[in-house]
């Protein structure tokens, strides 16, 4: 199912055009107050836009003089908080959507059980929402959002309110259920975008400032916000024991967020601040040494950002002066394994 939308909300100075292709997941990144949640609220039908139009397949969601109410859109919204109905059991929460769409009680419950199974939450079926942990409740909320067979799934920072310990499991669940599904995910996390989205758009002050395949946007940012996100170094490759190996045969040892089987597509992520720059190759310590060529130097206050292709290091201006760095120089980026996080890509 594909979406074409032009959303305008004057009060939030939002004017965003976007498309979501059949089966595609689009990540929306941007600073707080950029209008990301407003965009989702308009698409879900919870907020009236001042102008623009949106079409989902051949259904007009809104346009000049047309307004489809939320219940008729086939668009599910998963928010930061699970918002499970507190007076209904977990099973009835998930069955609510199918039941509201006219399925019988038995059909709805059967459908609900199927989706609870999909998110590995079948054992909570008879519980009350108040008896669930945050992560469990959010998984149930995912099942509830999917049980209506939405043509478009909207996710508004679905992992922001979760405990760090349960985030990987949630991300895995989302990765599985988002596969082949038209979805928009608003997030603050580069990793969410990287892992879940085919394409990424960056919204700043109500305008799309960047759009493209997630990896391109994050590796070659053109906007200030994109750059601050991509401040994180990202090295992709395939997982090996204790780390990853890039296409060029470079090995990086890293701490995996969760155990990864060998040979899987993976990404290593580390902060430029964790990188030290050496002119001579250091040896004899369990660290990652990346031979690079300095492409650019940029002073930011008392720090200097040393760029080398997609990678960057942040060192003090004094250190940069000591090393006598100039573009074109061959140096070594060194980063401790404990500073490198490894994720399934």
């Amino acid at each position, binding site marked *: 199912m594909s979406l074409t939308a032009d959303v305008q909300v004057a009060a939030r100075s939002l004017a965003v055009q976007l498309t979501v292709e059949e089966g595609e997941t689009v990540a929306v990144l941007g600073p707080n107050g950029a209008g990301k949640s407003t965009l989702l609220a308009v698409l879900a039908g919870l907020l009236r836009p001042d102008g623009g139009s949106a079409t989902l397949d051949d259904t007009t969601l809104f346009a000049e003089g047309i307004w489809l109410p939320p219940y008729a859109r086939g668009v599910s919204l998963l928010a930061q908080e699970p918002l499970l109905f507190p*007076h209904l059991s977990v099973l009835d929460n998930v069955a609510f959507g199918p039941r*509201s769409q006219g399925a019988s009680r038995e059909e709805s419950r059967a459908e609900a059980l199927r989706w609870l199974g999909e998110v590995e939450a079948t054992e909570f079926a008879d519980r*009350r929402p108040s008896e669930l942990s945050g992560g469990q409740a959010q998984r149930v909320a995912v099942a509830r959002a999917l049980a209506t067979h939405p043509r478009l799934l909207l996710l508004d920072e679905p992992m922001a309110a979760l405990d760090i310990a349960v985030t990987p499991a949630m991300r895995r669940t989302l990765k599985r259920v988002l596969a082949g599904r038209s979805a928009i995910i608003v997030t603050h996390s580069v990793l969410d975008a990287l892992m879940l989205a085919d394409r990424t758009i960056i919204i700043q002050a109500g305008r799309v400032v960047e759009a493209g395949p997630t990896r391109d946007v994050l590796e070659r940012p053109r906007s200030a916000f994109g750059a601050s996100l991509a401040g994180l170094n990202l090295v992709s490759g395939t997982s090996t024991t204790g780390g990853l190996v890039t296409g060029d045969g470079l090995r990086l040892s890293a701490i995996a967020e969760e155990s990864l089987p060998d040979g899987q597509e993976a990404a290593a992520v580390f902060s430029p601040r964790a990188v030290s720059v050496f002119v001579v190759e250091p040896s004899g310590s369990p660290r990652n040494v990346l031979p690079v060529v300095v492409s650019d130097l940029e002073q930011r206050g008392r720090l200097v950002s040393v760029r080398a292709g997609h990678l960057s290091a942040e060192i003090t201006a004094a250190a940069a002066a000591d090393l006598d760095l100039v573009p074109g120089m061959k140096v070594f980026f060194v980063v401790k394994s404990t500073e490198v996080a490894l994720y399934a890509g």
Partner: protein
Amino acid sequence: MSTTTRAIRHEIPRWVFVLAAGGALFVTLPLVAMIAQVNWSQFVQLITSESSVAALGLSLRTSAIATVLCVVFGVPMALVLARTDFPGQQILRALVLLPLVLPPVVGGIALLYTFGRQGLVGSSLEVLGVSIAFSTTAVVIAQTFVALPFLVLSLEGAIRSAGSRYEAVAATLGARPGTVLRRITLPLVLPGLISGMVLSFARALGEFGATLTFAGSLQGITRTLPLEIYLQREADPDAAVALSLVLVVVAVLVVGLAHRSRPQSGGAQ
């Protein structure tokens, strides 16, 4: 929400306790004084007299009907006030809540000029052969008039504090407005609705001024328990005290029952 950790309470100055105790005493002492006056040896005889039973029965019946009417009209009113935005809404809310602060006798006069024989609506009804004033219907109307604001006020507060986020979720799950109201909004505000109903029932049960003005005091037809008590106060003080105690017990029972049913119906557990 239940927490296992005990929060450290902010300390309250001592004089606050002294004043609070004074207030509690002020409220309970008259009840004690009244109970002390009860003539226990004739208690059962006093409250089972024909006029007493008729008054109690009439009071319970009319208050129950008034409470139902409060729900029928009050729930939609609370919803409109809490969930919509239109010019003049503040004025409408003030008018709707007016009976709350209006002296009941004034309410009775207003009702008389509305539904009475010569009244705005009453004169037309009279033509159709329907006479409302000084009938049991008038008692119910008077009680509903004074009790309705209690339900609207407590339910509107409950609807507002429940917020509309669950309703928004329900709508995105494909639920039409009617379904959202029935399966989400009302169950979520059930505790507020119940306490509103209790308040309305209690207010209807105690209604005196508007009833006397608009419905009069005819035994078995419009003489509710408060009217009966007021009449007996001169003729038979012992009966008045005994019936007052009955009214207190009924009120306590209603409040108690409502509180017992609350945790099961709408709470978090």
